[in-house]
């Protein structure tokens, strides 16, 4: 029920510095391991992470990402240990952490008007710094795509609370799907494209719905 009420909030609005600069023939994009967690929203509003859902969600998202990006005019690199960061060394891992931190900063400071930064008002200018080269060397790629997804689903108890709340005129939140996609130029560290997702629909437990999520998240990807 809440899902239908809140679908109106669905929106994505990407940010970009323009087109990708590398020539199409040697443009390689590495799909970084997806940071994903699926959880159940209990009656009282406590979210409980679900390992089984997360595992299948990750597989669906990875398959959807590979399929969707294969249509881009770029060579897609999928790391051998596609789901884990364990084969990265300490310094490479710091770049991944930094890229995630920059991604969440973009989300806050570019999309929430009251948090807009005075230093960032002239265009979209975010970077993880030149050490991004460490990942370039690691994966032999020109760009890295970082995808972050959180998806929660209302338990039957939560649905009941929402219904009771509705009787008393209280609006309560159901499950939500949020995500970000950050494309980083590994030569300069510059974030060349960013998009986010925040809506009360979608279901990463289901392969078709996961494909739709990736398609929506990567709308206007600069191919």
């Amino acid at each position, binding site marked *: 029920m809440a899902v239908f009420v809140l679908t109106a909030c669905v929106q994505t609005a990407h940010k970009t510095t323009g087109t990708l600069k590398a020539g199409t023939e040697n443009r390689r994009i590495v799909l970084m391991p997806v940071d994903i967690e699926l959880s159940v929203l209990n009656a*009282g509003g*406590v979210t*409980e992470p679900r390992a089984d859902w997360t*595992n299948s969600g990750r597989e669906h998202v990875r398959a959807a990402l590979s399929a969707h990006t294969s249509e881009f005019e770029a060579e897609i690199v999928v790391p051998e240990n596609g789901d884990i960061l364990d084969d990265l060394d300490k310094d490479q*891992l710091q770049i991944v*952490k930094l890229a995630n931190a920059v991604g969440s900063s973009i989300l806050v400071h570019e999309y929430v008007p009251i948090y807009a930064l005075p230093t960032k008002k002239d265009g979209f200018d975010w970077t993880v710094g030149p050490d991004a080269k460490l990942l370039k060397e690691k994966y032999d790629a020109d760009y890295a795509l970082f995808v972050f997804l959180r998806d929660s689903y209302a338990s039957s*108890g939560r649905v009941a*609370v929402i219904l*009771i709340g509705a009787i008393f005129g209280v609006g309560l939140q159901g499950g939500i799907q949020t995500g970000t996609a950050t494309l980083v130029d590994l030569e300069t560290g510059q974030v060349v494209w960013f998009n986010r997702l925040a809506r009360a629909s979608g279901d990463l437990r289901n392969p078709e719905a996961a494909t739709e999520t990736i398609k929506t998240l990567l709308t206007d990807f600069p191919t």
Partner: protein
Amino acid sequence: MIRARSSVGLVASALILAACQTAGRTAYEAPLRQGELLDPPAAAQPQQAARTAEADFGLIDADTIAHDGRYFRISDLNPGERPSAETLEAGLWQSMDRVEQQARTSGNRVDDPELNAYLTEVACRVAGPHCSDVRVYVMRVPAFNATMAPNGMMQVWTGLLLRTRNEAQLAAVLGHEVGHFLRQHSAQRMKSAIEASNFLAFFSVATGGWGGLAGIFAQGQLLAFNRDHEREADGYGLLLMNRSGYDPREASLTWKNLIRERDANPEKDERDPFLATHPAPEERTEVLGELGMAVASKMPTTEKGRDRFLEIMLPRRAAWLRDELNLRSFHTSNELFDILLEDDPNPAEILFFKGELHRLRNDEDDAQMALDFYGEALNAAGSAPSYLHRSKGLVHNRRGDHAAAKESFEAYLEASPNASDRLIVEDMIERLATS
């Protein structure tokens, strides 16, 4: 309407009172009974057990928790076991795996291989067959704490290593944390939080406004649950010390010292959040002291491991002592340094840091006090850091005693010719010479 509300209020207050009942001492003792380290309950005990069983809440025996009139049995994890994917435990483990990845490359992490190897060795000795399930990370945080995540990630803070005085005291803390892991306390707490909040959600919408009181009830219930987990983990700490041969009488001593530190603080906060989730240190000192004696009496030999412990910690602790200074908490740090001085093999270092406390506070008589402590440090056993002379120079300089300041700065550069601030100090010497 008013009458209806006040009766709801009464019910709610009754619930709050019930929530504050904890299993108390039974929680400490349960692991020890399971380990056959405590004598079978005396004649008075069954009554007490029966009373606990009637309570809404608490630990019935080592394997059973009563909660909300229902009974849960909790089984220990087998070594190497991961919870199966559809369980709440698995969800928590997976989240914590991600946190652990962050912790591994955290800026706070101390990745000194020798220190890590030593802590892993002690944790392994305590964890026994669960050695490979537990991973220790040393974090540079100047406070007494260690944490355990449900997936086996243990974090030990440097402020704890500064305060424990031998391997047995360290083992008591590590054993406590392993106890949290074996009993899957995080998962229990999560379940409890979900249940409490679910109840709260229905209660709030159904009573249309009494949610606030119900919230207090739910929170009280969770905190009481927490405190019993801490007690049970303390009991596990003693059990594991027994199994690994450490002197269980050492467990209570750390708490005794922490009470001294706390009481030294004239502005101590009685509403310390640590105390809401943990039993009072006085209770832990007392119960751990008594049970520690009882457990020790069942052991043919006990080990403290003081020399081995200090051999690892002493060369590393100057950095941790500097972190302690940065807290700018004069009274508690001063008390801590006094506690350390009581049996420290390197009093010169501690006396220097007592001097630093005064230099940094810089009240009326502090300059003289600082110089006195630096002097004591130079005459005491052990060795103070070479930057003692720099501090001394700074105090003299502040007092306008330029000749003495110059002399101290020169002594600093002589003691530490490769100092990273050599150029700055040379410049200061030059200015002092011409002033």
